[in-house]
């Protein structure tokens, strides 16, 4: 059966940026403004409606989803993915166009909302289930299954505020996972909990999709998306760039952003040397945007020397998504340069960076005394891993995740557990 279950027709959502700013101002401030300078007040209020301050978070979005399809939505932050899900799950109304949904819709936009910290686990399961759209007798029926899924049998009568954040998330996901809507909207829920629990969640989603239910799935984890989704839609700046099989769309996504020539903004401190081009390359010299944790990659940049320099050195700095400076790599020796165009390449070894997003700073310097040219955040890239253990929003993993050599032995015995065994044990997991 190929019934259309979601039909989206020229959907658009407009935000007034001016209007958004208003949320911090107060009635009093506006009254004062109105009384003290009525003309200015009028002018700014009218100006708020002008086109310059209008942002179309979604524009002319049209697509269809058939029953039983698992469709992934890909796009960078701010591309409109979340807005699309919010409109489809009726949290906010669209500005233009329409969408028709034929079936019960359930969303996992964010799990655990509506938990009351003072209430017990049991009470919250009921409350959360009903908020998410279950009937009370449905919760009754699934209660044991939910609790077992969360693994929190012992803490049912404990107020949720005494739960660790991991426990709260597990309980919340367990409730949400037992919803039985025809259409499930999933937004980044896999970014929670420990490895074992994530596998469980992924399994549950696969189970749901095999049952013939429709899923709209948003994630930054391209690996999971390839695994789960049969089809994908690529959004950029609120518009659909392409849609098709997940593999193709992911490829387009990856190449689009790597093919995109970055507008290089450099700061020059001194004439003589300037950075002119930057690129992120894989070992095949292909420009990339997403790199595999298991493979090395290269930060390459071009610089131009306009006058003879006696000593010049290059550096690269990586910052992660939490704004932490992860590494500073400096070419330790300086070199003299004749005018011309040069290329520098810095290899980032495999199995070093924790999966997540990184920003690159590049600089040219003379023994760090004279800075010639600097490019701040001139590149950004994602390190991904098939290992679902990584939560891109969790800083607990540390800024680096290197493979180090280990030695474990039983005290007094001297017998060592061989290294290869350990590796196998890891792989099995």
């Amino acid at each position, binding site marked *: 059966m190929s019934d259309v279950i979601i039909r989206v027709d020229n959907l658009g959502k407009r935000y007034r940026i001016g209007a958004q700013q208003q949320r911090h101002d107060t009635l009093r401030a506006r009254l004062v403004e109105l009384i003290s300078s009525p003309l200015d007040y009028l002018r700014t209020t009218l100006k708020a409606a002008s086109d310059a301050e209008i942002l179309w978070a979604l524009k002319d979005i049209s697509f269809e989803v058939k029953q039983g399809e698992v469709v992934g939505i890909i796009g960078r932050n701010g591309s409109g993915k979340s807005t699309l899900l919010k409109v489809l799950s009726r949290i906010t109304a669209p500005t233009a166009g329409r969408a028709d949904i034929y079936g019960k819709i359930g969303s996992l936009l964010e799990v655990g909302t509506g938990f*009351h910290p003072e209430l017990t686990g049991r009470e919250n399961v009921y409350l959360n289930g009903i*908020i998410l759209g279950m009937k009370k007798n449905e919760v009754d029926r699934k209660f044991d299954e939910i609790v077992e899924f969360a693994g929190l049998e012992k803490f049912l009568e404990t*107020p949720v505020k005494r739960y660790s954040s991991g426990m709260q998330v597990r309980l919340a996901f367990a409730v949400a996972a037992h919803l039985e809507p025809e259409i499930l909207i999933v937004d980044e829920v896999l970014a929670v909990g420990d490895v074992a629990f994530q596998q469980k969640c992924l399994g549950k989603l696969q189970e749901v999709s095999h049952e013939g239910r429709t899923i709209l799935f948003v994630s930054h984890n391209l690996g999971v998306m390839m695994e789960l989704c049969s089809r994908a839609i690529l959004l950029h700046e609120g518009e659909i760039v392409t849609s098709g099989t997940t593999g193709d769309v992911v490829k387009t996504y990856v190449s689009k952003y790597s093919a995109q020539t970055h507008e290089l903004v450099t700061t020059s401190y001194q004439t003589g040397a300037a950075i002119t081009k930057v690129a992120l390359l894989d070992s095949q010299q292909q420009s990339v945007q997403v790199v595999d944790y298991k493979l090395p990659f290269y930060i390459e940049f071009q610089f131009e020397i306009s006058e003879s320099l006696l000593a010049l050195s290059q550096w690269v700095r990586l910052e992660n998504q939490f704004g932490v400076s992860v590494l500073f790599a400096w070419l330790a020796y300086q070199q003299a340069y004749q005018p011309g165009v040069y290329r520098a390449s810095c290899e980032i070894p495999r199995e070093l960076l924790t999966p997540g997003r990184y920003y690159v700073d590049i600089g040219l310097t003379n023994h760090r005394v004279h800075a010639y040219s600097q490019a701040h955040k001139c590149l950004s890239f994602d390190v991904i891993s098939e290992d679902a253990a990584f939560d891109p929003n969790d800083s607990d993993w540390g800024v680096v995740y290197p493979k180090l050599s280990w030695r474990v032995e039983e005290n007094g015995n001297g017998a060592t557990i061989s290294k290869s065994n350990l590796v196998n044990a890891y792989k099995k997991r």
Partner: protein
Amino acid sequence: MKNKMTTRAIKDNSNQPHIQIIPPQGWGNLALHEVWKYRELLWFWTLRQIKGRYRQMALGPLWVLLNPIIYMIIFSLVFGGLAKLPSDGVPYPLFTFTALLPWHYFFDGVNWSVNSLVSQKEVMSKIYFPRIILPVSSMLSALIDLAVAFLVLIVLMIYYGIAPSWHILFLPFYVLFAAATGLSVGLWCATVAVRFRDIQFAIQYGLNAFMYATPVAYSASLIPERWLWLYQLNPMYWVIEGWRWSLLGTGQPPQIYMLFSILIVVFLLISGLYIFRHQERTIADWI
């Protein structure tokens, strides 16, 4: 064959609700049937508020009883004892307690429903349900508090040996009148409070001032005759006098003039519903 087709069509219709997502157009309809569809949520949300409110308090739900008792003691000392205000021939503590119950119902209901959206902004930005559940459940949870506190009133009436007459049959009407008044204020202000947090404070002061425009601590017989027409426009005047009339036999019996007040509340309630409905679809953008 034909028969089979028909059953199939019917089945499809019942199994697959059709949800239309379109831009808000005009003032739309009130879609009150959705509240019925979500009645279990309404009930659980009300329970959540009641249960959550008194957790981790040593006295817990006893506060529902203590609150009006404390006010009764203060008012009895200040207005009944020091100022010696008349109390229509009823012992002053009973006189003011009978008014404090509906007043606190109104006060808490308005406060909670005005804040109901602001305090649940997290839920509102994540999950869809008819937002009107929030202010309505605030009024409901206040109603349950009222029912509990009513037990104290029964004890007081027994203590003072005052038995209600058949007037008590009118009491549910006055409770409903207070509920409608509170909800209309809540509906008008709740969405505005999301945009302007000032409303929360303004409501606090407004309500405190409003109490003195309502015969809670004093008898309405103190109001000069020529101002009575204005004074009696206040719906809460009728609610409180109505409580006294139906329980104690004093106060103001229902009158034709009360219709003005009722009309005001009906108007505020219906317009409040429309305003709320108009705002709720995009309220998540303001959070």
